[in-house]
């Protein structure tokens, strides 16, 4: 399966702002970038790659033409995808990002962004389903622990704890 770059035209960003752009003092927090595809032939979009420059959250909307009779619809493929975990600091500010089509939720998938191609399907069940009795006993242990903590009314932080029967807590020991 070969992949090719699709020629696209990226328009300049437009600020979403209420009121007169020239007179208002504030800086808009939301910008919209239009991307159009000049080529007419339909294609399957696999990946969008770009370099970030201080954008914190990204939403992608797609205008989809289904057939000649129904009007084109705008569909949201991605909403508020986080690019910068802390917008006030530099994390992720200038990173290169790739968005793959399987990241879009299947609920609002337009027709041409349909189910992932078989070879891309993530193998979730490789190890098989976990043993239900083991899961329930672990959940029970954790429940018992939270009950004990709730009963002792402390505000100390628990931190991490392991679920193999050995706990590393300041107040409780469980062997």
């Amino acid at each position, binding site marked *: 399966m070969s992949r090719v770059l699709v020629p696209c035209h990226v328009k300049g960003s437009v600020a979403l702002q209420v009121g007169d752009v020239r007179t208002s003092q504030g800086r808009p927090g939301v910008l919209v970038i239009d991307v159009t595809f000049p080529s007419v032939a339909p294609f399957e979009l696999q990946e969008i*790659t770009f*370099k970030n*420059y*201080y954008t914190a959250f990204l939403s992608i909307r797609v205008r989809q033409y289904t057939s000649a009779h129904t009007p084109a619809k705008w569909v949201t493929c991605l909403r508020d995808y986080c690019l910068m975990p*802390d917008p*006030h*600091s*530099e*994390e992720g*500010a*200038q*990173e*290169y*990002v*790739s968005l*793959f089509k*399987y990241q879009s939720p299947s609920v609002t998938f337009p027709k041409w962004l349909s189910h992932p191609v078989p070879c*891309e399907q*993530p*193998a*979730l069940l490789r190890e098989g389903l976990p043993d239900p009795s083991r899961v329930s006993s672990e959940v029970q242990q954790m429940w018992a622990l939270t009950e004990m903590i709730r009963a002792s009314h402390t505000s100390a*932080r628990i*931190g991490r704890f392991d679920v193999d029967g050995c706990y590393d807590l*300041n107040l409780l020991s469980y062997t």
Partner: protein
Amino acid sequence: MLQEESDLSLIIAQIVQKLKGSNLYSQLERQAWASLQRPEIKLESLKEDIKEFFKISGWEKKLQNAVYSELSVFPLPSHPAAPPEHLKEPLVYMRKAQGSWEKRILKSLNSMCTELSIPLARKRPVGEQKELLNKWNEMGTDEPDLSLFRPVYAPKDFLEVLINLRNPNYENGDSLSFRTHLGLIQVPLKVKDIPELKECFVELGLNIGQLGIDDSTQVPPELFENEHVRIGQKVLAQQDSAAAQQYIRQGSPTALRAELWALILNISSQPEDVLYYEQLKTNVIQHDLLVDSLIYKDVKLTASNDDYYFVFEDYLYQVLLCFSRDTSVLSHFAFNSASPPKSYIRGKLGLEEYAVFYPPNGKIAPLCFLYHEPSKLYQIFREMYVRFFFRLHSISSHPSGIVSLCLLFETLLQTYLPQLFYHLREIGAQPLRISFKWMVRAFSGYLATDQLLLLWDRILGYNSLEILAVLAAAVFAFRAVNLMEVTSLAAAEAVLADLSTLKVMPLLQIFLFATVT
């Protein structure tokens, strides 16, 4: 899910690539060939039998250690579209700042050459070579005239560059507002706060035994120390790097420290390593670099006057002179934004490059307490430099870089000692101006040696330099009462001038885990 898998295969591919060129690879190959003669290796199950043999003979452990070492040092794989300079440093304005800083150093070196009419590098005449070889072990006894040489830069100059770093996309304004930072560093890097530091340094907690606290004379050794030493010996017997790194977070017993550090840094003294050192020594004998005189002057001024380190003066020359010629160090700068200025030997055919970068003197001296054999000392120093200490001299956004450490220090002080911070600012004594020199030298030369080694144990254990910033803040917290009474920068510096009596582990523990916030 798919992204993580492809990231993992990329990391694996890169590490395999790196290890293929190493000594360990050829050793493993040789061992595999030699093992074919063993009776338990059968042709039909060749692969499994050889793997089993490696496991039993300890070679698998060596490979594990090598992989672990690479993982600690390797940066995370980045996006395929990202260019190599992005891997070194993702922020463009930081790269630019580092580039200008390097140019400045180079310019300074070059102008020193022209002023003093000394070439950057020259080949020594044979007579001079013989002479140097004879007194290789006692270079400290020399008294050449170095009065014309001046240092290339002082920590103060570097601090000024860091203070002037600005993110062009960050609306700061020069006038004081709620958006400007109150400290000296103005770039918005992400730094940890105390709850995050507590999670990160969980083994320094109050209920966990520490060397530096629980091995003091009042505490009976049966409570912690004996058991800790026993575990340390076991870790060394297992020769497991990852276990050693975890173990050393609680400190290393003095007797085991040299071996533990070597294990964590994955340094084994092979004959090839000794040979490499000898080769570097030959380079020193044959060529004289301008930077040698700078090194000489620097060592003479600092180490020879230091009460603890003057005995190691000769070692320092041997290590530093070789280090400034070690081009293998350059490969580690592939993932550091710094590219050290290089100089070409005039008159030599071909392209022999000798790295010429300003040597980090202060950080070798403490190592001399641990390692007495020059080539081992050299290897340990080099590995510590390329893993940690180079980040103290270059401008980057890395969490262990000096910019992040400065910001972490200032943020901790502002958040948890706001009165002290405000007071010091008001009297014109910005706290970073005092603590910068401690952090940039990793506290070497300021703490007592045993305390310094306990601190460096934790640097190795946590694979991060953030503890330097935490300690700096803890020192200010400790002397807060005195500092609140001073009224000038000079007086503040006097309060903090002598750190030689401080015990670092109690300070760190109290600041992180026992301060009421």
